[in-house]
């Protein structure tokens, strides 16, 4: 599949539609959610996802690297099991459990999304780094790379597609979980959806759903362009 071309098309189509619908509220053929304009809702949603993805990437990558270094290897089996157990936790549950612990609002939602987002990034970073052939690493050391250089110039570039795939999964799933975040007061595109469900207003419901869907699809296409392996391949790797 010519994924490059398809991703450009998707990005343009979904991203374009998203941008249009948000910039020109008049395009919507029905009354929109009144509490906030679509742009504000989108922005809230993106900030939440963006901030949690940042944490997920930094921590997930850092831990993944740590656990594959000589000194960290001893934690590897434990880390792998924690990831596999952690992935069995429903993301919605992690989000909801923030409320008894930390209360309502954007902050607790950000914590939950960050935690949950670390798992795919960490899992993929570990698998990718472990797949770097031993001979390649040996040659790099033998030629005179410092350990930091071996990581930065050899191991990480080779691991990039798989790490990005983990980041892709993490981010796209977070878009969905962030929608539920509206239930704990985090705002975002889940707000019109929930409001529509409660007040039986299909217009609000559709507004939130369509925008959320478009956001997820746009981000997914963007990741494809960045070189992440497709979700189909990457997710299977985690099912081991």
């Amino acid at each position, binding site marked *: 599949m010519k994924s490059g071309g398809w991703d450009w098309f998707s990005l343009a189509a979904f991203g374009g539609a998203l941008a249009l619908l948000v910039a020109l509220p008049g395009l919507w053929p029905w009354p929109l959610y009144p509490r906030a304009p679509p742009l504000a809702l989108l922005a809230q949603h993106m900030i939440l996802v963006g901030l949690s993805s940042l944490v997920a990437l930094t921590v997930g990558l850092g831990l993944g690297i740590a656990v594959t270094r000589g000194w960290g290897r001893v934690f590897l089996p434990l880390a792998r099991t924690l990831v596999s157990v952690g992935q069995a936790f*429903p993301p919605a549950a992690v989000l909801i459990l923030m409320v008894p612990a930390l209360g309502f609002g954007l902050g607790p939602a950000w914590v939950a999304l960050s935690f949950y987002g670390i798992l795919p990034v960490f899992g993929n970073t570990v698998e990718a780094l472990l797949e770097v052939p031993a001979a390649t690493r040996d040659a790099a050391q033998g030629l005179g790379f410092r350990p930091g250089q071996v990581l930065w110039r050899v191991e990480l570039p080779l691991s990039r597609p798989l790490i990005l795939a983990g980041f892709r999964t993490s981010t796209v799933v977070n878009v969905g979980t962030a929608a539920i975040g509206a239930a704990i007061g985090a705002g975002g595109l889940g707000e019109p959806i929930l409001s529509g469900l409660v007040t039986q207003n299909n217009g609000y419901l559709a507004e939130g759903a369509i925008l959320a869907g478009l956001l*997820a699809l746009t981000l997914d296409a963007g990741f494809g362009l960045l070189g992440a392996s497709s979700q189909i391949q990457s997710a299977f790797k985690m*099912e081991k």
Partner: protein
Amino acid sequence: MAQAAPGAPRIDPVLAVLALAGAGSAFLVPFYQFAANRIVGGTSWFLIPASRSAALGVLLGWAGIAAFACLPPPVRQAAAARWAWLLVPVPVLAALAGAARISWVLAGHDAVARVTLGPGFWLTLLGALVAGIALPSGILVRALGLLPGLGLVLAGLSRGWFDALSLVREARSLGSAFGTEFARHLTLTGGAVLAGTVLGLALGLAAHRSPGWRLGGFFTLNFLQTVPSLALFGLLILPLAWLSTRFPALRAMGIKGIGPAPALIALSLYAALPIARNSLTALDEMPRAVLDAGRGMGMSEWQLGLGVVVPLAWPAVLAGIRTATVQTVGNTVVAALIGAGGLGTFIFQGLGQTAMDLVLLGTLPVVALALAVDQILGVLSRPRGTRP
């Protein structure tokens, strides 16, 4: 990699830290909270004044784990070390005992007063979970460790030992509703996984045989999985609502806009993707040599299919079903928002009323269910004779 020898560290760092943190939290973090009624704020109770025997139990549990962590590496890795796993439930059971005791003391006589489980308790639970993962174990040991404890807790519940805890009181006030929604959650999950398996296997097979299906089918499923579940549920309501107004027969069948129908459809579609993906990979990676040999020996396509293809593909498919089921348990929570019922009902009700006990009554079973399903299916999908 300048050194050659691999080796476990002298003291297991994870267990040591866990034990220290666990023991520390026994003193430093409140385990229980007491409030005179639903409206006023609460006071915190630490483990020591609440119940000295419970504190002893918790500390003993963690001390045991700390001792294990300090054993020399060869001893830690010996087969007999598995029995140390029995220490894992100890802090949790002790904390629960403390909860029972203090709740009766503070709120036993007062139906309005509330004793809730505090951060200390939950941290202990979490710590025990991690310790349970970090300690070496086997199926037998885990069963021996968990089942008696579980039995004890269940017996206690039925005998009313925990009845002064607000969580239990909330559950009792729900009455049969809890059971109903729990059953509904299971039905939705089970039904969706079943439908998803059929769909996934069919798609996997079709995709294996035809590039058109491979591209189109997976593209669609991938598309659907990218879209957030809440959005998908919502989007399905609209056409279904329209359909049910157009075709009263559907309405008679129970397909309205909201309700279990859109949920089931969406959940099945979500469940189908991991199963389809795994079936396809299993079929793709089937060694040609095996099939050739089978045909060469005179097996019919049916015999080949049932006797060779299915057993070889089965582990991968089961792994896909495992992923699908675990994901569906979580997705079904969201389904409650569109009126499909299930444990999510309590979650969102609780959120709306700021009733944390209700939220917990919804969330904890979901988490436990997901973890249990994951573990059970994980054990089932392991090849025979392998130690977990």
